[in-house]
């Protein structure tokens, strides 16, 4: 199926006009787990539908495992064989900011010049192309400190937190430069979950002090490189949207369903930032019927539609094994047919 051109996607992101339908990016979050871990089956199934954006993952450091040719290309500063067998968010790589281990973490920070950073597959640049990685600031912070430590670090270890965030920012800005120099990249798409189902993780004061200065540097670097910056941030993050807009964030994903009011978000912010609407993965996809999926697509398109563009669609988060292909088929079909209808209305005005 025909994909939108790179320029059409750019126009949508920058609010220069809707395309013939909204960009469809569901494939970015539909993994092999939906297809019994069969990569070929996934590729064949997805080939029926538009894939308006190409993506490539940069090879960022692992928490503890370094590649043989770069022993410091890992986040932990000291040798560790495995992570604690605890909850995903309770594993602690660095227990104590006042320890020698902490200093070691800074001294042996991963080298952004590591050659293996750039993946073997180079995108052809025909379509709009994203360079991606997981975990930006807060997510990388808690992956090192454990979630509870990271959240209290804002009060108990502010200097160390600033130091970590600046080191991360410097690292990220350099890898962004390299990605653009070595590949054809139009945007960067990174995750940093800042909200829970009911509220932001932390206050606006914490956001202003610990996040704004670093996001600003990162977003400005993306723009200096002639690219966009896309941020995935789960949870109720409505309070931070004005700051993201002020800082120049180009695309926000997913405006998580059930955490915010879609129509209010569209009214207040829809002209100022491109919304990469995340389709509901908590109720409709795993538990709904194909008809429920179609209704939800229409609701999202009606809520967010903007004649200037500023709307793309994808999944709210990564796929899980309970996703049914019937529902995904309905998702694509309705998005394309109703999306074309919405766009035709815009173009005849």
């Amino acid at each position, binding site marked *: 199926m025909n994909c939108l051109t790179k320029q059409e996607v750019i126009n949508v992101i920058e609010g220069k006009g809707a395309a013939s339908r909204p960009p469809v990016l569901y494939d970015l979050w539909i993994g092999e787990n939906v297809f019994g871990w069969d990569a070929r089956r996934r590729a064949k199934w997805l080939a029926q539908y538009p894939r308006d954006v190409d993506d490539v993952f940069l090879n960022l450091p692992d928490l503890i495992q370094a590649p043989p040719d770069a022993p410091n290309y890992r986040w932990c500063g000291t040798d560790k064989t495995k992570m604690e067998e605890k*909850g995903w*968010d*309770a594993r602690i790589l660095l227990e104590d900011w006042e320890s020698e281990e902490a200093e070691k973490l800074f001294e042996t920070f991963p080298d952004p010049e590591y050659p293996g950073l750039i993946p073997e597959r180079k995108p052809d640049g025909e379509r709009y192309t994203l360079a991606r990685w997981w975990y930006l600031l807060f997510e990388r912070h808690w992956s090192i400190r454990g979630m*509870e430590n990271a959240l209290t670090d804002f009060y108990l270890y502010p200097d160390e937190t600033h130091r970590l965030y600046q080191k991360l920012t410097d690292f990220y800005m350099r890898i962004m430069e390299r990605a653009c120099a070595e590949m054809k990249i139009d945007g960067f798409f990174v995750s940093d979950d800042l909200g*829970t189902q009911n*509220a932001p993780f932390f206050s606006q004061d914490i956001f202003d002090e610990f996040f704004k200065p670093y996001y600003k540097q990162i977003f400005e670097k993306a723009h200096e490189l002639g690219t966009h910056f896309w941020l995935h941030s789960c949870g109720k993050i409505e309070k931070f949207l004005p700051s993201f807009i002020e800082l120049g964030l180009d695309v926000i994903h997913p405006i998580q369903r059930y955490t915010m009011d879609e129509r209010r978000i569209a009214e207040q912010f829809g002209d100022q930032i491109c919304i990469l609407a995340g389709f509901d993965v908590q109720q409709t996809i795993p538990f709904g019927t194909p008809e429920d999926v179609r209704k939800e697509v229409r609701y999202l398109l009606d809520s967010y539609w903007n004649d200037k563009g500023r709307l793309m669609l994808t999944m709210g988060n990564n796929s899980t094994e*309970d996703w049914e292909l019937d529902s995904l088929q309905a998702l694509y079909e309705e998005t394309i047919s109703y999306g074309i209808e919405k766009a035709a209305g815009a173009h005849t005005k």
Partner: protein
Amino acid sequence: MAIIEEISAYLQKGRAKNVKTLVQQAMDEGIDPKVILNDGLLAGMMEIGIKFKNEEVFVPDVLVAARAMNMGIAVLEPKLAEVGNEPLGRVVIGTVKGDLHDIGKNLVNMMLRGAGFEVYDLGVDVDAKTFVDKAEEVGASIICQSALLTTTMPNMEEVITELKARGLRDKYVVMVGGAPVTAKFAEEIGADYYTEDATSAAETAKKVALKTA
């Protein structure tokens, strides 16, 4: 008593060292340890819970307050044991089988402790048998289950099935929560309560405990 109010106020600011010092001072002044606990530490934690629910404070504030509460309780514990202080109730809590997410469950744990419960945290990836075995072992009256994934939330029903199989269903109140969990789902699997946040979970557990006391 000004000192009790001060304990509560410092706890809400997460000032653990001040809380510890003031609890010791209150004990030295001969104040009933139950008053220090209930009107100082737990009252402060309940206040934080209300502010958390109203988005006046956020997770970091809850964490530092809980840390201050724990330090105060540690000072107070020997005295509480002497006077035979009983918790409001006993709760077993965990994240269900197959799910490794921790933080939401931990916040509920903190709020439950702040409400006066003795909480047994089984961690993550907990199977139904372990939930029920632990509840039986410690004499709990409430079982709390958490799930973040749509693929693991069906495992919540297994605890209900296990309780029924052992003829224990009426002995326990089963509470469920987590991002994709809804009141409808709780009803479908036969859980007693769904709550949407940590503060509501503690409030509901408290109501249950007071009703059955």
